[in-house]
Each structure stands twice: as structure tokens, then as C-alpha cells.
């Protein structure tokens, strides 16, 4: 299995080295990312029930190959290029101008890599107690659909994948979830579908109005429509609202969030991990790609409302998390708070805010995914997630507690771990353009420390009660599964520059697009008092500001 992984990745790397980067960009990596898991699903469907031991192996192998493809894509990604790369553009329904248009830029790149990394981990880290065949089959379909949704550059194609992810997740929650799973699954499905209903009408209206204004044939191509900006301001605002409802359900934003605690809590461990790591990002990714890019004027117009909802999410999620008795529900509510930060950063309309949002998207996926895995392992051992029934685990399982501590600190956003750079940049960005929202949002950082540390104290400290005495230490296999996430937590906390370098050109292009389309738009940024020596040489005033962030945090917060 690992051999296959190594083989495929070395092959890709070898071919790259041999024929320079051109051969890699010729290789249709995005279709490969979508098709490979689907092939896995088909193989799983064809294996008879008598060989049920093979299901997991097939699923792991195909997801690892897909993950290797995504990493190969990361390696071949041209850092300084702000446009879409690895583009595939084939007609699908030619009469209506719908095409199979895929591409990746700095905004979607890391979400796809995250998808490629988190799926094998979720597959390996969570056990399934019955019906392995459909379980692994649906997970593979989910992986393919997630890859599709982040790389689609056609409105209909995006919508199709956006809706398709619902089906496997519905079955994952409904069939392998906990006690209240049917309710949670149905609620999840209908909430999201209701949001999508508005989006479908919106996207058709957008294409029709765009074609009418341009006088050409109808097209659903995102890049084309975003470039044209042909529809009227009023229409743009209405259609933006239609899109926003769909994304707000998915994020989820404050009044539309109620499906999330149920879905996350009732889902099986792998489902929760993927929900948190990948599927929640569909909404915020949608806001960037289909909000800011398609409707710069309307997004700017709606920014105060969206930022307010984001800040409400931060505070509300944190307060709810504090009061939870169920550990998994607590983590679920903490997601609402984190996603609030992302929305705040997206609608702050600054380079730092947007970059921070994208960083949080990825890092929240890593740390919350890891948290759900750990909570799942606690549940496997103790068959309860009630905080009150857990106590003193640190004494019986010190390594487990240590891992939990690291992940928890990353989720709180402690400097030096991966949660910090994103939150810091979002706050920096919002201070520059929307100060008061930033001021309120800062309290979320403190609240995060409150609910997580308090929960940690109750679960891991205290006397070891009778049922907790037999709590098993972290197994080696479990440690190996979670190790990649721990490495990423530390690495991306200390050195986020490789990520920022790839994100930044695309973000700058996006904001330049907004700047060109919105009257009276002024890009506000926090300028550093004195550029770091290295930055002057690089001719880059903003690059490396996370490193700067830590050292100059005092300056900047006092400055604006």
C-alpha cells in the first residue's frame, strides 16, 4: 500500500524532473483527482461481500493515490502565477454553454491538498462497525465530489458537485451515526438543499442576464462572467443574495447554523472529520470564489452585514461551546466560531484578511479534524462523550493527553502553532478596514481559550474515577495516523510562508478585480512601521508578515 503511494508519487516527481514542469502541467491532474476515488468506489462496489476485508484496503489505497496526486499538484504549482493552473476546458452541454471547466489557483490549491490529506487519515483513523462496503464506497464518492467542487470553474458544474457532496454525507450520517442520526442527516440534507435552491435560480439568472447584456450566446463559465461584470447593480445584489443564502447555510452563518451541531455530533468520526475539514469550507470558499469574484460590488455592499454575522458567529459559537456537556458538540460549536473568523476576513476586503481566511480554512481543517479524531477515540474507549463522565485521563494516558493538548492549543490559536497566523491576519485585516468588528472579534480568541481549556481541565485533570481507570493509552497505529496532522500543526505554525507565497498572488488579483469594479473602493492595509530587512531585498512589502506578525504584533496593534 505504501509502496503504491511511493511508486505513484515518485513516478510523478520523476517525470517532472525528467521533462521539466511542462509534462506535469500537461498531465490532467484535476480529472485524476476526481476520477481516482470514483474508480475506488466502483471497485468497492464490485467486490463481493465475502471479501469484506478488502474494502478498507481499496479505499485507503485509492485515497492515498489521490492524496499523492494532490501533493504532486502542489509541487508543480507555479508560485508566482496568480491565474488558474492545470486548466481543463471541455464542452459538456454545448447548447447551453456549460463546460467541464476545471482549474486551480492559490485560493483553492490548499483546500484540495487538505482534502487529499485528510481523507486517508479519516479512513485510517476511524473504525466502522457494520456495513463496510457502502461506508467506504460513499467515502470515496465524497472525496471525488469534494475535489470537484473546489476545482470547478463553471457555475453549473460547481453547483452539481456542491449538491452531490450531500448524498454521501447524508448516508454517512444516517447509516453510521449515533443515536439521533436520522434526524440529523435529514436536517442536514434539507437545510443545504434549501439554500442551493436559491443558488440555482440565482446562477441561471446570472447567466441569462450576462448573456443578454453581452449579446452573445449563453455561458455558465465563471471566469468569463466574472470578467464581464455585465449585469446591473440591482440584479447583481439580488443574485448575490441568492448565492449568499446557499453559502451561509453551508458555512454556517448565525441564523442558519442549527444543522451543524446535530450533523457533527451524530456523524461517525470519519464523517465529522470530513465535515469539519472539507465540507464547511465549501461555504466560505463559495463566498470568495462566487461572491467576491462574481459580485464584487454586491459583496462590498453586503460586507457590513456579512461581517456582523461573522462576528456574531464567533461570539455565539464560543458561548455555546462553553456550555456544552458533550465533548463532540463542543468541538462542533467551536467550528462555528472559527468559521466566523473566516467570514470576517473574507468580507474585510484586504489582502491580509483574505489570506488569513484561507489560512484558517486549511488550518481549521487540520486542527478540528484532529480534534474530532481524538474525541472519536475517546468515544471508542469509553462509549461516552459526556464531559462529566470523563475525568483524570491525563494520569492514565499521558501521551494521549499530550497530543490532545497540542491539537487543542492549535485550535485556540496559540502563537507558534497553525491556528495563530490565520486568526492574526484576519484580525489585522479587519482592523485596517473595519475596526470595530475586529475589536469585538478579538474576544473570540479569549473565549476559545476559555471553553477549550476548561473542557481540557474537566476531562484530563482531576481524580481518576473508576470507569476511567482502564482508559487505554494512544496506540502506535493511532499515533501514526495523527502524526501527519501534528507535524502540519507545528510546521504551518512556525513557517506559513510557503502557503502565503502561493495564496498571495491570487488574493491580490482578486482584490485588484474588486478594486477595478467597485466605485470608491479603497484597499486598506496595515502597513508595517519598518519593513524587515529581508523584505526590502525581496522587494516585497507584505510577504512574510506572519513572521513579522509575531515579532511586531505589539507595533501593529497599537498603530492603527
Amino acid at each position: 500500500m505504501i509502496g503504491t503511494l511511493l511508486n505513484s508519487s515518485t513516478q510523478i516527481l520523476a517525470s517532472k524532473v525528467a521533462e521539466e514542469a511542462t509534462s506535469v502541467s500537461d498531465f490532467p491532474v484535476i480529472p485524476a483527482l476526481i476520477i481516482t476515488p470514483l474508480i475506488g468506489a466502483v471497485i468497492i462496489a464490485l467486490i463481493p461481500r465475502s471479501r469484506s476485508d478488502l474494502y478498507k484496503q481499496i479505499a485507503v489505497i485509492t485515497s492515498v493515490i489521490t492524496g499523492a496526486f494532490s501533493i504532486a499538484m502542489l509541487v508543480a504549482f507555479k508560485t508566482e502565477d496568480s491565474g488558474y493552473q492545470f486548466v481543463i476546458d471541455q464542452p459538456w452541454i454545448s447548447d447551453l454553454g456549460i463546460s467541464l471547466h476545471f482549474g486551480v489557483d492559490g485560493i483553492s490549491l490548499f483546500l484540495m491538498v487538505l482534502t487529499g490529506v485528510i481523507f486517508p487519515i479519516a479512513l485510517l483513523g476511524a473504525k466502522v462497525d457494520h456495513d463496510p462496503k457502502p461506508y467506504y464506497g460513499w467515502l470515496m464518492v465524497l472525496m471525488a465530489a469534494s475535489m470537484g467542487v473546489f476545482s470547478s470553474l463553471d457555475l453549473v458544474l460547481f453547483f452539481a458537485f456542491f449538491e452531490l457532496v450531500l448524498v454521501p454525507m447524508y448516508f454517512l450520517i444516517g447509516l453510521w451515526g449515533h443515536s439521533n442520526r436520522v434526524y440529523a442527516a435529514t436536517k442536514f440534507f434539507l437545510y443545504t438543499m434549501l439554500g442551493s435552491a436559491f443558488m440555482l435560480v440565482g446562477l441561471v439568472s446570472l447567466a441569462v442576464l450576462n448573456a443578454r447584456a453581452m449579446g452573445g450566446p449563453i455561458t455558465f463559465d465563471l471566469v468569463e462572467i466574472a470578467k464581464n461584470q455585465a449585469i446591473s447593480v440591482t440584479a447583481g445584489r439580488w443574485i448575490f443574495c441568492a448565492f449568499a443564502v446557499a453559502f451561509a447555510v453551508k458555512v454556517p452563518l448565525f441564523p442558519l447554523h442549527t444543522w451543524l451541531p446535530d450533523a457533527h455530533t451524530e456523524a461517525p468520526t470519519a464523517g465529522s472529520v470530513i465535515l469539519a475539514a472539507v465540507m464547511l469550507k465549501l461555504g466560505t470558499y463559495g463566498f470568495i470564489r462566487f461572491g467576491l469574484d462574481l459580485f464584487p460590488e454586491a459583496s462590498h455592499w453586503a460586507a457590513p452585514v456579512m461581517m456582523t454575522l461573522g462576528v456574531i458567529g464567533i461570539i455565539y459559537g464560543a458561548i455555546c461551546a462553553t456550555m456544552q456537556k458533550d465533548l463532540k458538540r463542543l468541538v462542533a460549536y467551536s467550528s462555528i466560531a472559527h468559521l466566523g473568523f473566516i467570514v470576517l476576513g473574507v468580507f474585510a476586503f484586504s489582502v491580509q484578511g483574505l489570506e488569513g481566511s484561507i489560512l484558517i480554512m486549511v488550518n481549521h481543517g487540520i486542527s478540528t479534524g484532529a480534534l474530532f479524531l481524538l474525541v472519536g477515540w475517546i468515544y471508542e474507549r469509553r462509549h461516552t462523550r459526556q464531559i462529566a463522565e470523563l475525568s483524570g485521563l491525563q494520569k492514565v494516558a499521558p501521551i494521549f493527553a499530550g497530543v490532545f493538548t497540542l491539537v487543542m492549543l492549535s485550535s485556540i490559536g496559540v502563537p507558534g502553532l497553525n491556528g495563530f497566523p490565520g486568526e492574526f491576519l484576519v484580525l489585522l485585516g479587519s482592523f485596517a478596514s473595519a475596526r470595530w468588528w475586529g475589536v469585538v472579534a478579538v474576544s473570540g480568541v479569549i473565549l476559545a481559550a476559555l471553553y477549550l481549556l476548561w473542557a481540557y481541565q474537566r476531562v484530563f485533570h482531576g481524580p481518576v474515577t473508576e470507569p476511567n481507570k482502564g482508559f487505554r493509552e494512544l496506540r502506535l497505529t493511532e499515533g501514526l495516523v495523527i502524526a501527519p496532522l501534528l507535524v502540519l500543526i507545528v510546521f504551518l505554525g512556525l513557517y506559513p510562508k510557503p502557503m502565503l507565497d502561493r495564496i498571495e498572488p491570487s488574493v491580490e488579483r482578486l482584490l485588484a478585480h474588486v478594486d477595478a469594479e467597485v466605485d470608491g473602493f479603497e484597499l486598506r492595509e496595515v502597513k508595517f512601521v519598518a519593513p524587515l530587512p529581508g523584505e526590502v531585498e525581496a522587494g516585497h512589502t507584505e510577504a512574510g508578515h506572519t513572521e513579522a506578525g509575531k515579532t511586531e504584533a505589539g507595533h501593529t496593534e497599537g498603530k492603527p
Partner: protein
Amino acid sequence: MIARIVQDAPVQTLAAEAASGTPEIIWSAIAPNLILMLGGVLLLTVVSLLRGKSPSWFPAVWTVVTASLALIALIPLWARVQDEGAQTVMAGAVGLDGFSLFVTGIICLSVIMGALLLEGYVRREGLEGAEWYVLLLLSASGGVTMASANDLIVMFIGLEILSVAAYVLTAMHSKRISSQEAGLKYFVLGAFSSAFLLYGIALTYGATGSTNLVRIQRFLSDTVLTQNGLLLAGFAFMLVGFGFKIGAAPFHTWAPDVYQGAPSPVTAYMASGIKAAGFAGLLRVFVVTFGPTYGADWRPMVYALAVLSLLVGSFMAIVQTNVKRMLAYSSISHAGFILVAVEASSTQGTSAALFYLLAYTFMVTGSFAIVTIMGRTGDGTHALDDYRGLGRARPGLALIFTVFLLAQAGVPFTAGFLSKFYVINSVVAEGQYALAVIAMVSAVVAAFLYLRVVVAMYFSEDAAAELMESKIKIPVGASIALVIAVVGTLWLGILPGAVTNLANDAVAQLVAFKS
């Protein structure tokens, strides 16, 4: 005898205008219709001559072959229409155009599916006989007549042939009282609605002086009616007649009872073939004939019908506990969706409706194939509780049913998604945003209904043991039908380009008056 009526009708209506005696008959132009009709009559003859010595599968195979031949006969006609353009034959009474050929194809497909399902069904129920298939073929012939009619009288005759056979088919299950009740109910209400349609035709004739659709269209575009009350009343009455056939609210009340009572394979045919024929008539009369001149008058009526059907269909469906009734209400909400495309009254809307009808044929005949199989001997176990634990007892069957249900809910990469998408596209292009939103939101409500069935099949395991014990047999015919339906549902969802182009080509070649 039936054949003669079809041919003679235009002669009678146009007698005053026709200068020279009988019009020329181009037999090849109505080849598919002739094949279906002669196939039915010949089957009756052959089976009578064999006096029960024919094997039990014989009539089913005959029917499938006949319908397939009719499908094949469409190909040269299609090529002819695409080369030479739309044309009328039989003194303008029959339209030979892409539209009629497309709908004929849908009806043939639905006959094939119905016959495949009937094969195992009649054996299981101990009701073997060729009558089922003869009636099915004759009903389909009526449907094709209706779809290709370019004259209101011909259309009415087609509708009657279609309906009378369907009334009998509904009541054919002689061992179930509910089947006969359904047949009677369908007959009484159907006859009533036919009267409405006929009355509407009469009023339209009074207002325009012709029953020929092209003539009516020319008359309306050349003439400004100072008093159009007669014509508007004609619209309303005809709409009632068509609304009944397609099962649109508020003329839907027969549908749940009849769908539930009728033998399940007949329900499959009713939901696909009869609905397609009804919509063909509606589209040709309203969109093609009255659309350009009187659209502003009838479109609000269709708007109301569409909204009511969507809401009644989806909201009533979710409170049902019988799967057949659920599917009946869901078919009402699908009718509402297609009516949205009718309301658009554009070529785009018409081709969206055609695509929808084809997609729906795959989805609904597939669903009723499962229902037929699950009904077991007696065709009675259709309660939602009877599906509990199916996912465990028969995972393959449950998965296939899930595909059909999710397709009907409009999940992407199935036929259901694109058919909804095309409808929304056509109606938004006409600026009807509110209607589009209503349609999509009601689709979400309807999705809850499909999820209820999925929940019963997968998420409740208590009844699985009972289902495991009661052996569910899948006859050969039904399994072929399931394969066709699944392949069709996914094919239209994943590679829709060819069929979309076909639907667009079909609408591009339409018998209509061009000024």
C-alpha cells in the same frame, strides 16, 4: 376500424374547405402509429387463433418488439424532418415534426417498460392474457395520435383512444376490488374531463372558425378579435381537460386513488406515457398555437396551475404513508414542474419540457418497477412500513430505488437535476423569477418525501428479518426494465449533451404558422 376514424376525421372537418375529395394519404408518415396499432390488433388475432397454446411470455415479447419497431421507424422520419423541415400530412390533420416524433419515442419507451413489467406481474397475479398488452398498444397508439395531431378533433380522438384503453387497464386486476374502484373512478372523472376538452374545442372552433391548429394560429395572427370571450372560455375548458390528463392541481384528485388502485405496471405507464401524451397536446395547443398571440391570456392560468400543482404535490406527498400514493403526489409535483416550462411559452421551455418528460419516463417507470416487485403477490404491500429494512434485505434493489428517488429529488449527475435545471433556465429567461423560486423550494419540500422512503429502506433495521423471509422475486422482464431505467437516469445526468441537442432539434422543427 380505429384506423379509419383517424383518417376520416380530418376529411369530415375539412369537408367544406377541401376542394377535391379525399386527401392523399402518406402512410409512411404515420408509420410508428400504424405499427403500434396493427401490432395490437394482430396480437389479439394471433393469440385468439392459437387458442391459449402460446407461451405466457409471447404477448410481452410481441409488445416489446412492436414498440421497438415503432422506435426504429422514427429514425428515417426524424432524418426526413431534419432535412425537409416540419410538414403536415393527411390534409393538414397530422403534423410530422420533431416534436411529435420525440413524444412518440417517449411513449414507445414507456410501452416497452410497461410490457416488461407486466410480464412478471400478470404471471405472479395469475392474470395471464394478451388483453393487457393489446390495450397497452392501443392506448399508446392513441397517445401517438394525440402527440402528432395538428387538428383539435384528431387530438380529441387520440385522447379518447388513449383514455378508454387506460380505463380498462386500470380495472384489469380482477382480484382486487381497489383496482376496479380505481377504474370506475378514473372512467367517470376522465369522461367528465373529456367533455370539458370537447366543449373547449367547440368554443375555440366557434371563435376561430377552424379546428386545424395552423389555421387557428393564422387566423389569430391575422385577425384582431373584438370580442374574445368565446375564445378565452375555450382556453379555460381545454385547460381543464388537459389538466386532468396530466394530473395538475386542482384537477388532480383522481390521481392518488387511481395510481394506488391500478395495477403497478399500469401506473408506470400512466405516469410516463399518458402524461407525455397529455403534455404533448397541451404544448401544441397552447404554446405553439395560442402562444404567439394569446400568451398573455392563458399564461396566468398555467402559472396558477403550476404553482398549485407544485405546492399540493409536494406538501401532500410528505404526509402519505403509502408509497404508491407518495409517488402519485410526487408525479403531481413533477407535472407542476413541467407546467413551469409550459408557462415559459418559448422554444426553450418546450424543449425543456420534452427533456423533462423523457427523464421522468426513466425515473418514474424505474420507481414503479421497484413498486411492482415490492408489491408481491396481491399487489398490496405498498405501505412505507413494508419497505423498512430493504437496504439490508435486498441492498441492490434498495440502491437502485435510491437512485430513482434521488434523481426525482433533483440530485446532480442524474436525469432529474438537468431536467429541473432546463426548466428553471427556460422560465428565468422569460423573467419569471418568482415562479422559479417557488418551483425550486417546492422541490426541496418534495425531497423530504424521497428521503422518507430512503430512511425507511436504510435507517430502520427492525423489519429486515421479516423482509428477508418473504422472498422477493425479480422477474426477468422487470430486471431488464430496471437496467434500462437506471442506465437512462444516469446517462441523461452525466452525458446529457446528445439528448439535449435532440430535444432542441425536435422543437426547432415544429409545425407552426410562420408569418
